[in-house]
């Protein structure tokens, strides 16, 4: 009788179970149900959820939306390696488009603290990882898919978007900026 031999009884299903096993199974199952309930509960009462809103798109179509927003709401530019990158301040509550590409996030954004924005994310080429630091919100950015989340910055300052999905040889240089003003 051991785990490496066939069970000694032909019918082992009816062998009684020890006390600690029963107590442990009940406790563990209860805990599992609590953990399971936490996710729907957080959707109702929690403030940090991922929306289910997403669209199938194309790089060309998405880039056009980004360009349109940049043309309308650019407030200044910031030089990155000799290139002037627009900093865009879209109105509160509006649709904001950001794209990831090899190897930059474009454009830079400026938000007002406490206001909500519909942030759209997509990639023009490979997959990228939107990692907002030092807040630490992490989203997967997938080409041909446009993700929409409503985001409400509640702290002000300068925030950096690190790419945390490996995207080739200069992956580690891919940074973007979001500024939040009071």
């Amino acid at each position, binding site marked *: 009788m051991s785990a490496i031999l066939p069970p000694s009884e032909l019918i082992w299903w009816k062998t009684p179970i020890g006390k600690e096993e029963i107590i442990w199974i009940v406790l*563990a199952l209860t805990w599992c149900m609590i953990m399971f309930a936490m996710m729907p509960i957080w959707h109702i009462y929690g403030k940090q959820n991922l929306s289910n809103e997403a669209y199938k798109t194309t790089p060309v179509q998405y880039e056009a939306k980004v360009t349109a927003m940049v043309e309308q709401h650019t407030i200044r530019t910031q030089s990155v390696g000799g290139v002037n990158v627009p900093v865009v301040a879209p109105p509160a509550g509006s649709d904001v488009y950001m794209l990831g590409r090899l190897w930059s996030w474009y454009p830079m954004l400026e938000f007002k603290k406490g206001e909500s924005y519909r942030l759209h994310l997509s990639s023009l080429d490979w997959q990228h990882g939107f990692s907002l630091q030092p807040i630490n919100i992490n989203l*997967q950015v997938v080409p041909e898919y446009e993700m929409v989340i409503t985001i409400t910055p509640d702290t002000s300052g300068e925030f950096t978007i690190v790419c945390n999905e490996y995207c080739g040889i200069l992956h580690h240089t891919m940074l973007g900026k979001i500024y939040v003003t009071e």
Partner: protein
Amino acid sequence: MSKYRICPDTGLYFDRSGEGLMKANAVAGAVALLVGGILALLVGLTRWPAIHYLGASDFYMVLTAHGINALIFWLIFFEIAILYFASSTLLRCRLATPRWAWAGFALMLIGAVMTNVAIFQGNSSVMMTSYAPMEAAPHFYLGMILFAVGALIGCFVFLGTLVIAKEEKTYHGSIPLVTFGALTACIIAVFTIASGAIILIPSFLWSVGLIGQIDALMYRVIWWGMGHSSQQLNVAAQVSVWYAVAAIVFGAKPMSEKVSRTAFLLYIFFLQLASAHHILADPGVSSTWKIFNTSYAMYLAVLASMIHGLTVPGSMEVAQRKKGFTNGLFEWLRKAPWGNPVFSGIFLSIITFGFLGGITGVVMGTEQINLIIHNTFYVPGHFHATVVLGTTLTFMALTYFLIPVLFRREIIMPGLAKWQPYLFAGGMTILAIFMMGAGTLGVPRRHWDVGFAQAAEMGLKFEFPGSAEMMLGLVGIGSVIAVIGGALYLVITVGSLLFGKKLEESAGLMQSFGFATLAPSCYTSEKIEPVKGPAADLEEHGSAGFEAPGTFILAMLLLVTFVVYYFINWKYLSSVWPMG
């Protein structure tokens, strides 16, 4: 020559054709571990900011190869050996179609070499995940496909052996619990390989230009059906080995066949759904799908792991108490054979897998909590605790049993072998904890330079807090210690195979660890005594109606840690920007 060899020490039956296959697969696995381990050192030294050893392109190439060799090739080769052991040896049955098994082995070998060649040629630094539309060389995919086909043949040989054993009535009643666990691993492997085929074959055709495009999101979902399930099959295999070692070292019997087998059944039903862990931060897949799949359908596979976490050490405790170690809650554990690496490796694996790997896996697999963890350094921290401390350490411990029993060699340097599991587990624990710590601070995984020096030159500045750099340094130190532990394992095992004293006649194989009890009676199925159920021993060996009170206390400690850590992470999540 007889078709079987009966191990004089253990009474185990080895089918001669199966024996060769077990050896070949185990050795091929060890070679993959050697490659993966050397690369691990290079990765560790590069992510250690003070050293930053490799250049960027070498780093990404080496990291790709490290992942594939250590996470896929080493483990699956070794698992095929375990499948053959659990079927042909434990059922005392000839292995089905040894020629097919050799063909499968050859395919796996060719595939593994081919993929490695593709990576080291430099044009396939795509990481283990090779996310489309990032493209690798065609033979990168082809190698993976060949490897998978070979592994699938191995699974069918295992299933075929079960059929033969049943028809030839080599056993009576149900298959042993360990074989049942191996069956669980095999079933998960079949799904793993099927998912792999669905996604890797089109990727191969795409890389040679026969298909225009691979949908990136579709690729992610199906690839993880393979990528995550292949780790779940590790869990099933590793838990089977835990049960086997409890039987081998202690002569322990399962506390309850019913409970343990039902737990494996929950694995078969639900474990593979957790592939969704990787899709939680993805666009377009609904929360309903995410919640159902990421929770293994209401965490029923987590329940199963928690059950194994109680019943494996619990069965050891019961066996030890029967031997007279009945004082207090933990005499059975204090007086366990800590100098026997078969035991110490397994016990360290159980503890670290539960407390470090298991808890963090469930926490980060929570739909919303994943938002603060996805793709950070926390992720490899977690899976080094599950796959390395869990599976690799378990397989290392099992090797110390297989060398005398399967390879019939005495283990050389037993004094060092005693320390090997502690060294490896210690280094890996440091590494896993500080990887997770750095990840909590936002440090990304798969990243050559978290100091962002090149970006700063262009005018984009960002620095992680100083504590992140310190933790990365500790990760580097942990990796060096673990690599030394891993190297020791390879030196001892390969050295034993080459130079260890040959064991032909009966020889006391475990005496070299100062541990003689091999519980020989546990190998003889003839001496079956009717079991009256656990109630029979309660008063005598346990306390307060518990058979294994010490284990129960440890399990409660795990549960409390689990609950506290789980809610700490919700608290952290609630502090980030509101989003929805």
